[in-house]
């Protein structure tokens, strides 16, 4: 690990000023915020991240979960994954979020990882994590070793000729289906970005993963009020039953009345270069009867643009079946 200067900030303005001098807020940033440390310290040990300055933001006042006047939920950036997953309102009104978080990592890591940190969780692509290998995300222009290498666990949606790395987060998939809004404070004031716009496709700049600029600090995430009569579910398929990243996962939020779907939100995980919202699947489901044939049509639509790599063709069918099964479970009448 490269030596760095560690400092602690106690208010957001101090944090923003300290980080605004960074050359980038993306891969290889020279100044980094640190909270849970579960991604950053891991990558610093591998010399994938080599910040000169690390700013401890764990003492910023962003640790609360609050209900909003409109019935939505405000989740502080510093709320730990375990607190969020076990919060009674989250369990009741946003079950998909609780389930997604609890499907990821281990209890220890969930006690450490924060809401904002999880939004910025980095890919598990082994070439990204190995500085001896070429990787366009880690070192732009060096090439992608995964495309011709071991790519079984990598993405089939949103890929480019430069990068096929999967976004590994479970939480982000649930946030996509819940249409979360990310609130950011930066050098130019406050702004909010929808989860769909927050993460970027790799294109020819895979080192840029989010819209964050130097000095940008995520302060909180808001969720709209849960849709009346809706039910939600997270289903994750993986090589091990626990403590493993998704090969394919899906977050669904569905409102059905007398067997007819009136509203559907669908997102996929483990298959996309970013948390993958599928409006195509949602369109196929809306105003249709909750039948397997309809679910299958929605799944086909969600994976229509899938481009499998040499080793992960199985993910196309796996993701489809994952979505069909999740839709079956969530529309089952009690």
């Amino acid at each position, binding site marked *: *690990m490269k*030596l*760095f*200067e*560690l400092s*602690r900030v106690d208010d957001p303005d101090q944090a923003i000023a300290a980080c605004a001098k960074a050359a980038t807020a993306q891969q290889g940033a020279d100044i980094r915020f*640190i909270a*849970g*440390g*579960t991604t950053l*310290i*891991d990558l610093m*040990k591998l010399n994938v991240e080599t910040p000169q300055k*690390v700013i*401890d933001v*764990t003492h910023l006042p962003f640790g609360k979960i609050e209900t909003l006047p409109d019935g939505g939920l405000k989740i502080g950036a510093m709320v730990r994954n*375990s607190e969020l997953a*076990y919060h009674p309102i989250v369990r009741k009104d946003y079950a998909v979020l609780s389930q997604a978080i609890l499907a990821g*990592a*281990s*209890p*220890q*890591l969930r*006690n*450490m990882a924060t809401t904002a940190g999880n939004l910025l969780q980095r890919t598990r692509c082994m070439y990204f994590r190995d500085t001896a290998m070429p990787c366009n995300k880690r070192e732009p222009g060096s090439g992608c070793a995964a495309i011709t290498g071991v790519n079984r666990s990598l993405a089939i949606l949103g890929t480019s000729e430069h990068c096929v790395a999967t976004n590994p987060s479970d939480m982000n998939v649930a946030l996509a289906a819940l249409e979360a809004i990310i609130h950011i404070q930066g050098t130019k004031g406050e702004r909010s970005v929808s989860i769909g716009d927050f993460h970027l496709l790799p294109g020819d700049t895979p080192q840029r993963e989010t819209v964050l600029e130097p000095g940008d600090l995520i302060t909180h995430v808001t969720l709209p009020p849960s849709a009346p009569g809706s039910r939600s579910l997270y289903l994750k398929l993986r090589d091990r039953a*626990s*403590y493993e990243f998704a090969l394919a996962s899906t977050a669904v939020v569905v409102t059905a009345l007398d067997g007819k779907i009136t509203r559907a939100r669908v997102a996929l995980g483990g298959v996309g270069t970013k948390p993958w919202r599928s409006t195509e699947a949602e369109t196929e489901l809306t105003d249709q009867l909750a039948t397997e044939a309809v679910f299958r049509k929605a799944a086909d639509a969600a994976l229509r643009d899938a481009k499998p790599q040499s080793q992960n063709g199985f993910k196309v069918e796996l993701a489809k079946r994952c979505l069909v099964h999740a839709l079956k479970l969530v529309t089952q009448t009690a």
Partner: protein
Amino acid sequence: MSDQNQKEEKSELEDGSQFAKSTRRTFLSRLGMAGLLVSTRPMIGESARAESPAPSTPELEGAIPVTLRVNGKKYDLRIDPRTTLLDCLREHLHLTGSKKGCDHGQCGACTVHINGRRVNSCLCFAAMYQSDEITTIEGVGQPENLHPMQKAFVSHDAYQCGYCTSGQIMSAVAMLKEPCGPEDAEVKEFMSGNICRCGAYQNIVAAIQSLRQGTAKEKQA
């Protein structure tokens, strides 16, 4: 039994030959105690030194002053900012009960409690936890005063080589306060962050369940 045999047995015990009647279980639990005793000595030294700069810590370029509270004791140290909480505990405070397995937050051998919550100490920079209460296996129980979870691990033979055991116990103790359901399957899920290379999982689950069910029965009674 003949008088002669009785005499021999007695003299063997009087010799203080503790390992004469060792079973694998008692041997391992004694090993655990030995580990604790070894780690206790420097601890006392450290706390005595805490008033002056710790002489055992060589002065490093870029070292920063750090104050930690571990197992109820305060330590003033100068450490490299890269020092993880795990390395700080083991190399600076000589609390070697917390183990280094993968050093990347995957195996759970380094599990400690920060303010009562279990974390992977290998993914913490020590300098970030100066206002927190840190508890390690040494703070959970001592050979003469084992935590009920430690006793349960011993009586259920919930280890083989013992390397992951302190992490397993730290997780198991924290788990008692977490919303884990009553079934074995739920215990397995809650313990999934602790890997046991020997595969002592069945006995680990049995040890935890015996304590949980015992506690549940006490509550009912």
